């Protein structure tokens, strides 16, 4: 195995790290203690929760304003691990940079609990939301292992047994294998007291299936598991996101590029007329605040749908190359580093996630199990399919928002009913828009701190 851990820090501020960090730890501990003193209501809407956006689409896009974010520790000692999951696997030349699975671990000094965090659809181990969760859990005293989503191209190429994600039970198997490899790699380097598990979005749903798997294999015996903004039914959620793009592009889906061009030009006009210094997060807030009228919901929905489509394009392309399925890349075609991929990308912008599930994944799943039906695949990719486990497993909880856009009507109530006291529902925040809000961060910390 070539994956020698590389010590990195999240920024270069090594020298001032220790002092500031000890303050942070103290504050985190005080916060933890004060939270332990008050019991947590199922509805987390108390005075501390001041997430500003009532529109779930705005919340999903803009996220938490800087002033309301949980404080960030600037210098978490992070080891990046490069893992060889299948030593026999020969990754196609095109993916020469994806032959190993890249993940990270933030290490505490001395013995500490360890939490695995699974990223959401299309996201890497070091995406913004993953860094926010790493920040929260590190401050709460955990070793934090961050794992890319099984839908991320790097995971598909290096760690997916089938070479195509979407059957959550299979994805859970892949994740479980990765978690074992991580622990093998870290053996002797860190001391772990107990194991915990979480994930957001699709990663949240996958966490529940990984937990179920662990009941059988008992390698980790997770003390607690939390699903953050999970989908209840994968098909329902991806269909909502597919339609956000397809239903909202003016003139139809074939005009997506024109629509994006207009948005970029509008940005450019605002940017060049205003007194903006940098093109960054603050810039987006300033634009939003300065708009003469609130942005139209169909435009916001289109942006979310577009971002999702870009993620799913990456996923489908990687799966197609890995399985040689002939979906958009002709069967037997061996692409290499010098080949233009633009046409594949453009083609994939027209292909929905649901189409992938029906026309790519289902035939692939049938190859190994001819009896499997579409309905069985749809049903299997839902929390309903493991609801008896979720109902009785006291260690599993859910944290989501009443206005999460990936949930269909009734699904929030379903989660409340299924989890009862183990459900934390914030009144607004959209899909993961509030994941780094200080009240949510405190709630996450509190959930895992409770016995």
């Amino acid at each position: 195995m070539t994956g020698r851990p590389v010590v990195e820090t999240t920024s270069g501020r090594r020298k001032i790290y220790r002092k500031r960090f000890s303050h942070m730890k103290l504050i985190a501990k005080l916060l933890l203690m004060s939270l332990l003193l008050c019991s947590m209501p199922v509805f987390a809407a108390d005075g501390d929760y001041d997430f500003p956006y009532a529109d779930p689409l705005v919340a999903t896009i803009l996220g938490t304003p800087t002033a309301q974010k949980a404080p960030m520790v600037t210098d978490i000692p992070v080891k990046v691990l490069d893992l060889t999951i299948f030593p026999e696997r020969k990754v196609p030349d095109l993916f020469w940079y994806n032959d190993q699975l890249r993940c990270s671990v933030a290490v505490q000094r001395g013995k500490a609990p360890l939490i695995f965090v699974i990223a959401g659809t299309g996201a890497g181990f070091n995406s913004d939301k993953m860094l926010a969760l790493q920040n929260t859990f590190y401050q709460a005293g955990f070793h934090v292992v961050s794992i890319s989503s099984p839908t991320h191209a790097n995971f598909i190429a290096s760690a997916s047994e089938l070479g195509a994600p979407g059957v959550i039970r299979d994805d859970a198997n892949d994740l479980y294998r990765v978690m074992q490899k991580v622990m093998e790699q870290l053996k002797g380097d860190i001391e772990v007291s107990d194991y915990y598990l979480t994930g957001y979005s699709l990663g949240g749903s996958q966490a529940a299936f990984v937990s179920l798997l662990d009941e059988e294999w008992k390698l980790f015996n997770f003390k607690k598991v939390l699903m953050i903004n999970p989908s209840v039914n994968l098909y329902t959620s991806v269909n909502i996101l597919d339609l956000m793009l397809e239903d909202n592009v003016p003139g139809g889906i074939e005009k997506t590029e024109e629509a994006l061009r207009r948005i970029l030009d509008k940005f450019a006009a605002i940017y060049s007329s205003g007194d903006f210094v940098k093109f960054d997060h603050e810039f987006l807030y300033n634009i939003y605040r300065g708009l003469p009228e609130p942005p139209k919901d169909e435009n916001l929905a289109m942006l979310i749908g577009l971002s999702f489509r870009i993620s799913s394009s990456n996923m489908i392309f990687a799966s197609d190359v890995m399985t040689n399925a002939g979906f958009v890349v002709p069967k037997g075609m061996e692409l290499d580093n010098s080949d233009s991929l633009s046409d594949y990308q453009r083609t994939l912008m027209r292909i929905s996630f649901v189409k992938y599930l029906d026309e790519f994944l289902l035939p692939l799943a049938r190859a190994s199990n001819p009896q499997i039906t579409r309905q069985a695949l749809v049903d299997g990719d839902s929390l309903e399919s493991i609801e008896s486990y979720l109902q009785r497993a006291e260690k599993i909880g859910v944290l989501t928002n009443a206005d999460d856009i990936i949930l269909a009507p009734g699904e929030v109530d379903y989660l409340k009913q299924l989890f009862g006291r183990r459900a934390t529902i914030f009144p607004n925040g959209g899909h993961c828009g509030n994941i780094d809000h200080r009240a949510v961060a405190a709630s996450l910390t509190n959930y895992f701190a409770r016995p």
Partner: protein
Amino acid sequence: MKRMHFLWLLAGLALLTGCAATVPAERAKYTLSDFEQPGATRPLAVFDPFETVNRGLYRFNYNFDRFVFLPIVNTYEFILPNYVEDRVSNFMDNIGEFYNFTNGALQLKQKSAGITLSRFLVNSTVGIAGLWDPATRWGLQRQDEDFGQTLGHYGVGNGPYLVLPIFGPSNLRDTTGLVGDTLAFNAVDPLNFDHNEDWELPYQGVKAVDTRHRQPFRYFKSGSPFEYELVRLLYTEKRKLQIAR
């Protein structure tokens, strides 16, 4: 002589990367022609006639980064305290005001050129030879300008997209701009290298390391199969924004 080396490098890379993919056995289930007429408008397309060479250079840059550039940058970051690194960055930025000023002036942006001049004066004196940047705290924001932007300001188009060795994403206009800025700097010679030849090489070295030190981008870090396309689009849009200001 230097330029000759560069051309040989390009030619070599083109040869190395020029092998085509194997011929497909059958048609894919979905192809672009299922969704698009040939010749359909592509408002986000970037003109990239040298894509094969560019992709080769993109990979070359990854390797150069990994085996040469980043190890040097990491050593630099390991040895120097962050405080000193920041002073170096400020110093380089202050000298870089040369480009901001000349190009602000060439674009007849009086306010921008005025701010740049004030920044230079303040930072060179109060900021002690540019090691500190009090000007920004006083509300004089840095005005990033370069000759590529000047050309764009006067209507010169992008030209073909280029991935330059070591420098990374560019296009014909911005590469011309880079050359123009360098020639102007050498002609004016604000640091008087003509009489301090021994200092030129260390200066260029530190400048390169400082630039990479401040650039968080890492090749292939996104893991996306379409990273090349994404970087190409983002670079082009970013330059468009800068020029429009």
